[in-house]
């Protein structure tokens, strides 16, 4: 039984003056417990829009989204938040809470009167802080943190929701290689131990190749490829999607592949 299934998802941004109309259509995928799907594609392909459609930030124009076989329309916003947690790219820290206060907001969907936290809530918050290595920083103001630390706060807040599915929007942007490795470890442990399914937008194609068993590739609001990463991600596809030549390098042992883009090539017009 799939935790999240998406069939024929369609969406058009309301037309505003001067903007080119943007249509998203024909998005299909499904996630089972523990799955990891990498969503790839150039800027403006509609990747973030797909995620926002899943947690009801946007209302689809068509198609079916089901969480545990229940259509999204039938779920309250709170029920959606208990099932799906979104980790956005940026944390807007205008009014700055402390790290712990921010992570506690993840418990809102678990509904206690006036935001009072139960013992269970506190345990989950402490666990989320521990898993993201934020326990020593928990009394710091979020506005005083580095970009990488803020990303971890966003992940911790999502973990505190105890979701079945994590929706990650470029989780590794602005992270150094050490923190990317930490993030991958944390996410993999969640998949293994708690069966959390993950959909992650990635710009780092090499990371997608080495990490994601499945990928979905978008361009211009359409899915141009989907399937097992090794079989789907070919140099031809990469050239079509990103408009730049690419080579896939293996480490010789047959498993790991690294994608090398040829930035000196002229942009392919197709």
């Amino acid at each position: 039984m799939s935790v999240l299934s998406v069939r024929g998802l369609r969406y058009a941004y309301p037309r505003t003056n001067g903007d080119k109309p943007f249509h998203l259509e024909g998005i299909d995928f499904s996630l089972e417990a523990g799955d990891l799907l990498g969503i790839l594609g150039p800027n403006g392909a509609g990747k973030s829009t797909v995620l926002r459609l899943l947690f009801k930030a946007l209302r689809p124009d068509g198609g079916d989204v089901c969480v545990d076989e229940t259509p999204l329309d039938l779920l309250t916003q709170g029920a959606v938040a208990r099932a799906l947690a979104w980790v956005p790219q940026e944390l807007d820290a205008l009014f700055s809470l402390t790290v712990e206060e921010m992570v506690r907001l993840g418990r809102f969907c678990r509904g206690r009167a006036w935001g009072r936290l139960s013992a269970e809530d506190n345990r989950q918050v402490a666990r989320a802080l521990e898993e993201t290595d934020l326990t020593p920083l928990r009394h710091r103001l979020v506005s005083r943190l580095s970009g990488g630390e803020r990303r971890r706060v966003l992940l911790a807040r999502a973990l505190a929701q105890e979701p079945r599915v994590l929706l990650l929007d470029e989780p590794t942007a602005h992270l150094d290689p050490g923190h990317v490795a930490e993030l991958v470890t944390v996410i993999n442990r969640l998949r293994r131990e708690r069966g959390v399914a993950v959909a992650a937008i990635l710009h780092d194609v090499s990371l997608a190749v080495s990490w994601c068993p499945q990928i979905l590739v978008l361009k211009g609001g359409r899915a141009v490829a989907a399937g097992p990463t090794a079989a789907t991600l070919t140099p031809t596809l990469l050239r079509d999607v990103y408009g730049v030549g690419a080579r896939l390098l293996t480490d010789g042992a047959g498993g790991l592949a690294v994608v090398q883009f040829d930035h000196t090539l002229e942009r392919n017009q197709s």
Partner: protein
Amino acid sequence: MKWARAAGPLTLSAGAVVFVLALAGGAVPLVGGFWHAATHPGPGRDILFDIRLPRVLLGGAVGALLATAGAGLQGLFRNPLADPYLLGVSGGAALGSVIGFLLGVAQPPAAVTGAVLSLSAVLLLARGDGRGGAPAATLMVLAGAALHAFTSSILAFILSQTRRQEGLGILFWLLGSLEAPSYGRLVPLLALAALVLGALFLLAPTLNLLSLGDDPARALGLDPTKVRWGFLLLTAAATGLAVTLNGVIPFVGLVVPHAARLLVGFDNRRVLPLSAFLGAVLVVGADLAGRTLRAPEEIPVGVVTALVGAPFFLILLRRERNKLG
């Protein structure tokens, strides 16, 4: 941490001192025989219970309403400059209230209607990007200034057309002279104020989510649309009630929430109630200053809060500008 633990009791006792001083001080000082005056019949007791106490209650209610409305608006619009006065909501409420008064309609609903209409007008003028984003902070304040100029000129026109005595009365009320009303008029308004404040406190946890933005709020399980309407109506109602009670008092809603956040951080479950308390202290204190500094003459309380608030506003404005680069 030690300091933070002491801050709570310190704030509470400082506030209590202001309230007691406001009851004791004034044209007829009661400081020496305060308990005597309170417990024995006579002119002292009359002054205390018929003049000073209603005035302190009135000032406290007005301050609590304005400061809580300011805290609500700041969180709602993610705008540190939001304030019922700066957004033109107080001006709209004043105009509504005066029109209500001249037409013989009950003033509170007229003032609340004026507040709701002007808040809607500001939102319309400073509309966001059409995708549900909050309007830019400075743009909202500009729209509020325009609206305030508009409502002020209509008020000036009305005042110029009324008889001199009546006009002066309206003018003094607009400036926020805390003239003690009878208990018969005061008590129902205080009850309404308590209801509005209670509703705002109940919604405070959702304000923490709303101030993150619409998408994060949804992702965390809150549908922002309904709660936003609740906040809009309640902050407008709070402003309308405050204006009905005591005219336009500027900057209370701007200054107080920032002070509250300095004391307890940014969790609105603490910011809103503390703002209400500090707002009450500020207005009662400003009134105390207003009626003692030049006794027996009185300086309207709105003049005192403007003297405190305007420099503070300029500092905040500079900070906003620096943020914009």
